[in-house]
């Protein structure tokens, strides 16, 4: 259950960003989670509200964009989606590939409510 550590790190960063923007409330947090990130989106979704409680992010919606694993083939040049458990080129079958997506565990944006007074 390292999702708890992830949720804590996420809320910490959201709090920092919200303070910088003088936000009174965080409405929505958008994150990207890759299929090879080792993070269970459902666990993160259920832990986020608990960790966010009594912070500026309390009640915020957590939107998780799931990112598929993609590889770039060094033999034929194709960049394509692949199964997380098969790191290889789907076109030419080459195993000489590099991962181009799938390890993401990133915050993308946050939607804030700012008091303009």
């Amino acid at each position, binding site marked *: *259950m*390292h999702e708890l*550590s*992830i949720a804590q*790190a*996420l809320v*910490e*960063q959201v709090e920092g*960003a919200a303070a910088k*923007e003088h936000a*009174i*409330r965080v*409405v*929505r947090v958008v*994150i990207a989670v890759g299929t*090879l*990130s*080792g*993070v269970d989106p459902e666990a993160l979704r259920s832990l986020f509200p608990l960790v966010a409680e009594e912070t500026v992010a309390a*009640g915020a*919606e957590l*939107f998780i*964009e799931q990112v598929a694993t993609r590889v770039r083939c060094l033999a034929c040049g194709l960049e394509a989606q692949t199964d*997380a*458990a*098969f*790191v*290889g080129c789907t076109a030419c079958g080459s*195993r*000489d*590939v590099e*991962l181009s997506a799938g*390890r993401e*565990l*990133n*915050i*993308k*944006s*946050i*939607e*804030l*409510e*700012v*008091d*303009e*007074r």
Partner: protein
Amino acid sequence: MCKDCGCGGDAHVHSHDGQVHSHEHFEGNAHSHSHEHPDELPVSATAETRTVEIRQKILSRNDEQAERNRAWLKAHGVVAVNLISSPGTGKTYLLERTLEGLRDKVPCAVITGDQRTDNDARRLQGRGAPVRQIETVNSCHLDAEQVGRLLPEVAGNGVKLLFIENVGNLVCPAAFDLGETFKIALLSTTEGEDKPVKYPTLFSNAPVAVLTKMDLVPHLDWNAAACRAYLRQVRPGVFIFELSAKTGLGMEAWLDYLVKLTE
């Protein structure tokens, strides 16, 4: 992809005007649509909602500490390997034999992590290498801060090779960069040969894999060729060691490899 409108492209701005949610895509195709916020708390009259692009790693604090650890290790000429496997694969036993094998050849040190007890540290002591135990208590993995705090005392005095024995767990430790030189995934023959495809996060991120308890193969329906194929399926080009710390099978190649790492 935008959740609200399904449009592709990840760079776009959202702004709110009442219940209308407009998007301005950087490609120039601005459009708007209505958008309900059913769970929204009452918005104060003077409040304005705006979206801020952040684009940071969620674990950026851990990653920054990991980079500091990496720089420290490099500056002190230390190669650090992060050993990850499920509990019971035989990490500690392999380390016992490894420390004995490298004694007087390579100055080694160990940081070992478990939720509770210092049993592993006690097992590894007296083999010519400084050993420190991290008790993570409720946590299922080591993090960069825990390792960074111990580096100067454990790996500061001419140590060339640092083994970081992570908490026994195939999932969580894979997500936390400790600043190691690289990860080594271990898998025992009693665990089933398809673990690499079941846990690709770890096995795809470890350039070296060690298959332990090879002495048990005659007693098991364990297929070495299938296991190697699964390992290569998630990590083409993975370097595989097959050994038994108990009988010594394959230990020579493993020890030679570790010596070469530090040269």
